[in-house]
């Protein structure tokens, strides 16, 4: 195989690899972006949950100093009934209690 043939073969391999690499990079970026958005959404939801907690639950009582995560859903549902929270607020508080 001559040097020219090796050179052309190399160009073809590069030509095939570059778009593949570019696509992989794009996918990685998309995944990172999605992950960042998800994290941001989670953080936003948690922040909103804290706000809802302060505007509703904390009006009557102090927050408990700690509790096992296995009862967080039941606590929040209880607060939903007691404080007449809507479903979105219930989810936000749950996210705040389980970040």
């Amino acid at each position, binding site marked *: 195989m001559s040097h020219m043939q090796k050179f052309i073969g190399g160009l073809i391999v590069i030509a095939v690899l570059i778009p593949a690499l570019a696509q992989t990079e794009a996918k990685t970026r998309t995944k990172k972006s999605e992950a960042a958005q998800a994290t941001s959404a989670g953080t936003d939801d948690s922040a909103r949950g804290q706000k809802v907690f302060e*505007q509703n639950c904390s009006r*009557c009582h*102090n927050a408990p*100093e700690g509790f096992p995560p296995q009862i967080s859903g*039941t606590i929040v*549902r209880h607060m939903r009934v*007691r404080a*007449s929270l809507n479903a979105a607020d219930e989810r936000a508080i749950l996210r705040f209690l389980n970040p």
Partner: protein
Amino acid sequence: MRMATNHSVRLRICWRALALQAACTAVLLGSAVAQNAPYISGGGGFITSTKGGNTTYIPIIAPEFVGALGDHVMVESRATILESYFPRGGGSPGYKHDAFLGLSYLQADVIANRHLTIVAGEFLTPFGTYNERLSPIWISNFEEAPLTFGAGTMGTASSVGCMVRGTAFSSDEVNVDYAAYFSAASTNGQFNAERSSGGRVSAYFPKAGVEAGASFSRLLQNTHENFFGGHFWWEPADSYFRLRSEFAHAPHARGYWLEADYRLAHFGGERSVLGRLEPVFRMQQVFRNALDAEDGMPSADTNRVDFALDYHLPHAVRINTSYARELSSNGNRNIWQTGIVYRFLFPLWRDK
């Protein structure tokens, strides 16, 4: 041979992927279910109350059970168990004691949709705010309920029947919620209630920290009576100041209470020595135009001021101390109260 090898490798990868997906699903389902474990909450404490020179000692525990069944149903109950030791009176030395065990409520909640929750069983009567929100011993700033507490809650504070409640309208600016109930008469020792109906509607403005509402209830047995009430709360955001007030009107009496408290957390934070202190002031007045045993309010015109110093210790322990001066046509008296209250919260069973 190579094709067969590739096929078996693909199969293995496929099975591993399926197993991983199943494991992830199981973990997610498990975590979702695990968050809904039932729990026991409530408060326990020891209270002393000195009225006109007579001191009563009350060890008390008020456990509350909450359990979720699926995504829409919840069962909850609160009991009160106490023993009160009080002077024999009549010049006799020593103390007598009485035990009390009662259910405050035992109800099933069905969350029908985002606007409606249906409650059945024995529940706290939704009149005003004190009964539903501030009556637990680990929440209330004072050991004694307001003078107007009996009005509208029919004396028993609990109803046996059904209730609908929920959020009528909700936005970032305002939240409008409602509650309407019907109660049957019950003379059962644990489920004592009067035949009555009523409800409450309130609007809460979260940005301003203001809530205003109105309540109504009608006694439907013996002498039929109407009760009206109103409440106003102001709890400014980013502040430790709280103002709560209620007004109640019965056919033969009317009254109000107004309570202001300020936790000194601006001095070093909530966990500082000074930041754990919470001075509270409450003012109450009741005006009566005729005797009425049904309305649950004092039998004569009464003015009362309460001063309290509450101290929030670590581990959900709180010390409440208060002094009240009561001025009444039936006689004036000083009321001294102290209490130490512990709030507990734990799952009914431990997670594996």
